[in-house]
C-alpha cells in the first residue's frame, strides 16, 4: 500500500474505502472508467451491471476494450481486463430491472449510475432508495449544431449527481423531470431517439469526479459542506461548478422518497 494513498485518505478512511461493496450500472464510456478506478482503489467488490455486448463503435470510449473483444459482454470484458487487481469483480449481463441486478445493487454500500436513459436513471434511483443505497450518477451530453447557422458544437459537458437516502433526490434537484422522461419515451416510440455522442476524455473526467465524491462520502475528506450533490461540467468553457438547480433545494429532505416508505411495503 503506497504512503501517498494513506496520506490522502488516512488509515481509517482507506480501511473504509477498501471495505466498500460497490455497483456500477452501465459498462460503457463512463462505467468503464468507474469500474477501473474502483478496482485500482481496491474496494472489496464491484458489481458490473450491463446487458450489452461490445460493438466496434464503442471501442473509442470503453476503456480497456479493444477490437479483439468486440462481441463480448461489456460487463465480462471489464472483469477479465481487471482480474489481476484485488477487487472482486462480478459481472451481471442483464438489465438493471432483472431480479439478480436489483438484489445485487441493493446489497452495496454505494451504487454508480452510468446510463444514457432518463427512465433508467429513475429506476436505479428507485431501487437504491428502497434499500438506502447512496447513488452517484454520471452523464454527459453533447449537442451538435443542427444547421450551418449554429456552431458545430452547441453544448458539451455533463454532470455528476449524488442522491443520498432521504436527502434531495433527482426529482428534488430537477435533474429528472416529467418532460425529460415523456420526451424520451416519445422519441423511442417514434424511432427518433438520437445516439448519444460521447468522448472518452469527458467520460473520464466526470467518472473521476464521481469517484472523488464517493471518497468524500466514505473517507470523510469533503469538508464541512459535504459533497456537492449536483455538479455541472461545461466542456466549452472548461468549468465544473455546483449546478444552479441546487439553489433553494433542501438537501436534507425529500418529498418523493421518505424514510417511512423505504423497503418492500407491498405484500
Amino acid at each position, binding site marked *: 500500500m503506497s504512503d501517498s494513498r494513506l496520506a490522502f485518505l488516512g488509515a481509517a478512511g482507506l480501511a473504509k474505502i477498501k471495505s466498500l461493496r460497490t455497483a456500477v450500472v452501465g459498462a460503457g464510456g463512463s462505467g468503464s472508467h468507474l469500474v477501473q478506478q474502483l478496482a485500482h482503489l481496491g474496494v472489496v467488490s464491484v458489481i458490473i451491471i450491463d446487458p450489452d455486448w461490445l460493438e466496434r463503435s464503442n471501442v473509442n470510449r470503453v476503456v480497456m476494450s479493444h477490437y479483439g473483444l468486440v462481441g463480448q459482454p461489456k460487463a465480462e470484458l471489464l472483469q477479465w481486463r481487471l482480474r489481476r487487481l484485488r477487487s472482486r469483480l462480478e459481472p451481471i449481463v442483464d438489465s438493471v430491472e432483472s431480479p439478480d441486478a*436489483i438484489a445485487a445493487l441493493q446489497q452495496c454500500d454505494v451504487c454508480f449510475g452510468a446510463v444514457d436513459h432518463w427512465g433508467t436513471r429513475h429506476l436505479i434511483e428507485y*431501487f437504491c432508495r*428502497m434499500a438506502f443505497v*447512496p447513488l452517484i450518477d454520471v452523464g454527459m451530453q453533447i449537442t451538435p449544431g443542427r444547421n450551418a447557422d449554429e456552431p458545430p458544437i452547441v453544448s458539451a459537458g455533463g454532470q455528476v449527481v449524488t442522491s443520498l*437516502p432521504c436527502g434531495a433526490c433527482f426529482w428534488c434537484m430537477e435533474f429528472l423531470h416529467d418532460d425529460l422522461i415523456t420526451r424520451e419515451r416519445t422519441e423511442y416510440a417514434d424511432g427518433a431517439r438520437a445516439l448519444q455522442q460521447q468522448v472518452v476524455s469527458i467520460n473520464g473526467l466526470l467518472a473521476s469526479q464521481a469517484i472523488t465524491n464517493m471518497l468524500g462520502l466514505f473517507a470523510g475528506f469533503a469538508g464541512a459542506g459535504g459533497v456537492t450533490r449536483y455538479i455541472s461540467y461545461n466542456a466549452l468553457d472548461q468549468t465544473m461548478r455546483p449546478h444552479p438547480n441546487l439553489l433553494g433545494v433542501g438537501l436534507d429532505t425529500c418529498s418523493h422518497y421518505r424514510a417511512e416508505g423505504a423497503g418492500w*411495503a407491498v405484500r
Partner: protein
Amino acid sequence: MRLNVIGRMARHMREDLLLSPIAGEERLGVAFVRYASSYNRSVVVLTEYRALPNDGYVELVSAPVSFDVRWFMAEAERAASVNAGVFLVHLHDHYGMPWFSPIDMRTNREVLLPISCVDHTLPTGALILSRDRGAAALAQAGRLVAVNVAEVPG
C-alpha cells in the same frame, strides 16, 4: 444479512437512548424495518424509530424484560399495518462493536422469536447500538441470525 440505517437516524436513536435511564434500566425503543425488496431478503432497512414511553418501563426482577410487552405488541401491530416488522433497540454506552448481553439474548429468545412466528414475511429482531457501531439479530425460522449493521451516508 445486513441492516441499513441512515446516518441521521442512527444519531437520533443514540441521542434518545443516551438520555438518563428510567428506573435504573437501559432506555429502549422500537424500530420499524422492511426487507429491501421482494427480490432481496438479505437486506433490511430501518424506516422509523419510536422511543419507549417513560411509563412503559417495569421493575420485575424475575421478568425476562424490563418493559411493558403490551407496548411492544402495539407497536408491532402498528408496524404490520404499514407492512413493516419491528426491531427492539437499545444502546450500550461504549465505543466499538456492541454485543447482546445474556439478558438481552433471553429477551430476544423469549419475546422476539414468538413474535416473529406471527408473520414470517415481516422482519423481527433486535438492534443494539454503541456510541459508534451497531449489531443486530434477526429472528428467522425459529432462530436468531446475526445481522451486520451499516450506517449509510444521509
